[in-house]
């Protein structure tokens, strides 16, 4: 459908709604708003608006609905699939000013937040009152709204699940400007189709989320991490199902190779406590006392040794663990420092991840393509990064396309899914369509049409209409 271009009358109306200082257009729009963290090409929005209230969001959407102007919601812009990029121009609706934690309800163990609250600020705020928000995506400067929109996962998914498992209710604005609330401060809910669950992971294509109700846990008081070196990535990853079935579920099970440790050491300017082994697992246990944690890790340490681990290193103090996890947290930035790259975020059943890792390694050999993989071994979510290295851009793009195609095919063969936690956005639409098949794709298109018959909200994302 043909979208309207922004006119000076549109600008005036948007300024009237949000206040003049919160509307940017033309050259005032920083090129940061053209892209997210990993998309290859930029798309300038015609206008950037930064509303502060649900009512302002509703007025903006109602106006754009009337005028047939596309609207792309955006949080902190830390996505990795182009989900928050305004590919058809129009309005980029940034939620950064909707950044209040409205309530931390210690009686019900719940919190109500606006979408622009940063994950790191929210985690700290609940921890300050002895509570715990378990989802732990690597990107701490992402917004909670962005986490909900992509159903972000992170390191602790193996024990605590993903963002979806912690969202109880939402307030959202439909493309025509109507405000809805779904779910609520209830632990159980069997009241018809769950629109909450439909909006989670919908990447701003169905509605603009304006309030989020999440549940919380009491904060575990103690934490111990294990760094487990192996002779090879295969051995490391193959040990994971044995660890998970040993009776003690770690909060996190990450895997990585020596190469990326060296890259992270260079990026951070500090050395990792151990880096002589080809591959590692990094595990965390959360609990309330050290004796309980020691029992848990002893059992897992024995399993690791039986699976051929070189040793099991124990990080028992906050300082020691910070050294490990700071390094893990820097992996993505360190890889970005290695040049242009593209990524795959596939997820397979946890006991098939060794096969997927092996496949990625063989592809790297076959195409002579520098491929770095690391990820969440415990939940089957593998991040595979393909680096351009010294190749020409054209040659690299052609090669990565072939390699990607084959990884997605292999993931599907292993009963996997296209995206574990980054979402589909723009970059993975084709692979999603292939993976879903025509029947499911048609259902998704019908859902999109039911919410957004004019296809104005984040058009061109997740599915083609």
């Amino acid at each position: 459908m043909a979208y309207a271009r922004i006119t000076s009358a549109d600008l005036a109306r948007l300024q009237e709604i949000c206040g003049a200082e919160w509307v940017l257009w033309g050259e005032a729009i920083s090129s940061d708003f053209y892209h997210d963290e990993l998309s290859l090409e930029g798309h300038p929005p015609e206008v950037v608006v930064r509303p502060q209230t649900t009512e302002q969001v509703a007025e903006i959407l109602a106006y754009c609905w009337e005028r047939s102007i596309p609207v792309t919601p955006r949080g902190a812009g830390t996505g990795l699939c182009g989900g928050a990029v305004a590919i058809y121009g129009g309005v980029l609706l940034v939620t950064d000013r909707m950044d209040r934690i409205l309530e931390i309800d210690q009686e019900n163990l719940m919190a109500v937040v606006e979408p622009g609250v940063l994950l790191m600020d929210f985690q700290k705020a609940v921890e300050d009152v002895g509570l715990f928000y378990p989802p732990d995506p690597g990107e701490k400067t992402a917004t909670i709204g962005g986490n909900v929109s992509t159903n972000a996962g992170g390191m602790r998914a193996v024990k605590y699940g993903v963002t979806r498992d912690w969202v109880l209710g939402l307030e959202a604005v439909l493309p025509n400007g109507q405000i809805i609330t779904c779910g609520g401060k209830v632990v159980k809910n069997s009241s018809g189709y769950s629109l909450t669950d439909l909006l989670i992971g919908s990447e701003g294509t169905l509605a603009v989320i304006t309030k989020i109700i999440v549940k919380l846990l009491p904060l575990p008081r103690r934490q111990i991490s294990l760094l487990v070196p192996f002779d090879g990535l295969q051995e490391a990853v193959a040990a994971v199902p044995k660890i998970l079935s040993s009776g003690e579920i770690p909060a996190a099970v990450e895997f990585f190779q020596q190469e990326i440790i060296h890259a992270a050491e260079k990026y951070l300017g500090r050395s990792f406590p151990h880096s002589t082994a080809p591959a590692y697992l990094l595990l965390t246990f959360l609990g309330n006392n050290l004796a309980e944690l020691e029992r848990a890790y002893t059992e897992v340490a024995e399993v690791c040794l039986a699976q051929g681990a070189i040793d099991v290193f124990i990080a028992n103090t906050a300082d020691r663990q910070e050294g490990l996890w700071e390094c893990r947290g820097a992996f993505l930035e360190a890889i970005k420092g290695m040049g242009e790259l593209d990524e795959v975020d596939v997820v397979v059943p946890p006991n098939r991840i060794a096969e997927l890792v092996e496949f990625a390694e063989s592809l790297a050999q076959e195409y002579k393509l520098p491929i770095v993989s690391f990820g969440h071994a415990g939940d089957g979510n593998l991040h595979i990064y393909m680096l351009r290295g010294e190749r020409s851009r054209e040659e690299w793009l052609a090669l990565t396309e072939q390699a990607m195609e084959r990884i997605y095919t292999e993931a599907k063969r292993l009963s996997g899914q296209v995206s574990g936690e980054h979402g589909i956005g723009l970059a993975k639409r084709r692979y999603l369509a292939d993976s879903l098949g025509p029947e499911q794709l048609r259902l998704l298109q019908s859902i999109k049409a039911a919410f957004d018959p004019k296809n104005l909200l984040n058009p061109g994302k997740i599915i083609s209409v």
Partner: protein
Amino acid sequence: MEIIVCIKQVPETRDVAVDEQTGVLLREGVDSILNPFDLYALEAGIRLKEQYGGRVTVISMGPPQAEAVIREAYMMGADRGFLLTDRAFAGADTLATALALAAGIEKIGGFDVIICGLQTTDGDTAQVGPGIAEILGLPHEANVISLGTVVDRKLNVVRDGGASIDTVAIELPCLITVSKSIGEPRLLSYRRKLAMADAAVTHWSAGDLGKDVRMFGLKGSPTQVERIFPPETLTSQEIWEGSAAELSTRLAEKLRELKFVGGDMA
């Protein structure tokens, strides 16, 4: 090479509050850990052992439960441990502590290098290491930031003397205290834990040291703590305006004035 490392069990100090009325550390729910600086002393000792062979011996003074930090040292690579534990050691200031540790080290005997962490996180005095060396009549260097090689029974080290950074050759036997620049301490090895499960920790009482016990503990302490309080935090602000060039020059001058950075302004 026979290496002795002095270690201490301290409260994990993150968020530890001090009762301002009584000056007592609020330790409720706080775990005890190996003094973080001692990790670097152990790392230095184990590296020397790896390079020159020999043995790493740890010694600590504290209550019986301080054996935990000696077991932790075993998991890093220490070979044997001694714990000075006796009510007679309680309430020791830095002098009485140094006297007890020096007496213990004398009793162990036959050492080439004694290594201490720069300071502890609960006392922060940095006096015990050099104190031990003075009592034992050993050459010593504090705040060593890098270990060199041993040539002709001399250990080459680089020390940060505050105003200068010096390379020093110290005759063995000697004592050094090391800073966190010495190298990232290794993690605790589960394999070492299994291998050292049956290794003993030798406990010595004040009487075992063969000295007049009145030199130890509170009785042997010429200083006493009157009050412990958290350092004052400054909240004053200065706001500057100007061009980026002016402001960056001014900022560099200020940092130099505060001695946060060194070097010429050229």
